[in-house]
């Protein structure tokens, strides 16, 4: 199995006091595989995924290490080069769909601007691409959506629009940070099904979550993070049936408890 993304010795420290937050994190994402990153709140999942996409504020965080993607170290790229990769080859689904969109710009315009940032197309062509992609996400009244401001749409709709945008330019990998946390259970399972379909297209995914249920439904591989370090990794099967650390066992137990509560 060949790797699409190889993270080597990723270290994130705070600029102001040199405090390490993410320590020596290394992992791979295979082509067409779904990697789950799990860990309790504050374990460094979001910082790790943002560091990969170069989204961390350099004034606050120092990022060291290597993020190899198709023969390039993303951490060494110029701002221009990275703009060309983000949204095109690597795209992101944000945790909170209600705040991710610019509140003063219509959805259609935000889609068009994304397309035009990467492809030399006309406005009309970009618009049509957006419409087609939204239709594929089972959204109705697509032209109405294109003409809407974000606050007039529901969280579930916005989340699907975000997935549509993530798929728009046929990326190699999509990073989804807590993409289902803010959603109700039924919307959540629709989105997880979408992830499976994305995988069927040969696209890799990193799914960040603190919920083993999500991992169980979609992931192939898992890394478990605690206090900024990877304490365990393996396939989903290995982690579920043969957890090595107490911490992972605790997380799994918490999940079982949550299930019992929700079935009770």
């Amino acid at each position: 199995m060949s790797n699409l993304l190889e993270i080597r010795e990723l270290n994130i420290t705070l600029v102001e006091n040199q405090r390490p937050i993410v320590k020596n994190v290394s992992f791979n994402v295979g082509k067409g595989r779904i990697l789950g990153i799990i860990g309790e709140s504050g374990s460094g999942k979001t910082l790790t995924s943002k560091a990969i996409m170069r989204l961390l504020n350099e004034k606050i965080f120092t990022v060291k290490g290597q993020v190899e993607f198709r023969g390039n170290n993303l951490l060494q790229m110029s701002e221009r080069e990275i703009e060309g990769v983000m949204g095109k080859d690597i795209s992101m689904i944000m945790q909170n769909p209600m705040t991710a969109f610019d509140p003063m710009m219509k959805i259609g315009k935000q889609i068009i601007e994304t397309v035009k940032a990467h492809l030399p197309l006309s406005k009309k062509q970009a618009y049509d691409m957006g419409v087609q992609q939204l239709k594929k996400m089972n959204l109705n009244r697509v032209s109405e959506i294109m003409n809407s401001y974000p606050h007039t749409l529901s969280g579930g709709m916005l989340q699907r629009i975000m997935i549509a945008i993530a798929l728009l330019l046929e990326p190699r990998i999509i990073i989804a940070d807590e993409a289902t946390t803010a959603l109700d259970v039924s919307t959540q399972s629709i989105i997880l099904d979408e992830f499976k379909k994305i995988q069927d297209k040969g696209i890799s995914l990193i799914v960040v979550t603190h919920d083993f249920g999500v991992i169980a439904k979609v992931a192939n591989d898992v890394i478990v993070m605690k206090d900024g370090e990877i304490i365990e990794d393996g396939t989903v099967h290995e982690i579920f049936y043969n957890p090595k650390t107490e911490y992972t066992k605790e997380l799994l137990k918490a999940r079982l408890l949550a299930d019992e509560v929700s079935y009770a």
Partner: protein
Amino acid sequence: MLRYISNRLIGLIIVLIGVTVLTFIFSNISTVDPAEAFARRNILNPTPMQIEELREEMGLNLPVYRQYFHWMGESMKGNLGISLLTKNPVSADIAKKMPATLSIVGMAFFWIVVITLPISILSAVKQNGVFDHVARVITIFGISMPNFWLGFIMLIAFAVVVPIFNVVDYGNFKSIILPSLTLAIPVISSSIRLFRATILLNMNKDFVTYAKARGISKTNIIWKHILKNSLPPMITLMCQNLGYMIAGSAIVESVFSWPGIGSHLVEAIVGRDLPTINGCVLVIAVIFVLSNLFADVVNIMLNPKILNEQGEF
């Protein structure tokens, strides 16, 4: 939208009533008797009898509330009374003085826009850089300096020491520059602080992170997302400033001997010219209140979300 505006208009009428009532009360508790002041200006050695007659003629013997309702009724008809000083209709005097005030306020507004926008953008984008620090020091000066002091310094610097401008001048373009700058500088300074802070706040919003993640270029993120989202509070502030500057022009106009409504009002206060005082206050209050309403309407048109949040009472 219409409902929102009509709700606001009712509020504005209440504000106007409050402001005019207060003016009436303050004029009445003042120790200087306007009838006597008027008599002394116009009659050599007036007798108490003559003063009493005048008082009745001017309606000043009536209780304050009756004076107020009478004045209110007349001003609704557009009649603000006759000035005790100039003997002209108050409205005619105001109309004559207004263009001078509007010209410095308009020019000040121009300075505010062309100076505030680039400086705040540069300060925010290069946060904590040299430019940002220099701008911070200068704006703190600008905010803390009283208007009259700033005016005198400008006069001394640019009309006396380096005589580019004339100390007393009116009626040409050059003469507008110093008074309008004096009026604008405190507003510019506080606007830069606010705009810079708003831009910085928006830079850390989720939608900026997401725009970066979509590969939108830095320039487009700044211009199309961050600045656009920073404009609504700015526009509100600008329109409020418009009213504030017209109201606050009195001091600057006095320093520069500028024949506008501000110095007209000051003269009226000194000369106990009650109809002129009441008329000027009413006109200034109307302008103030309308510019605030205008600010809100523009804001709503820029950002439809505000109406959802505030429009339904």
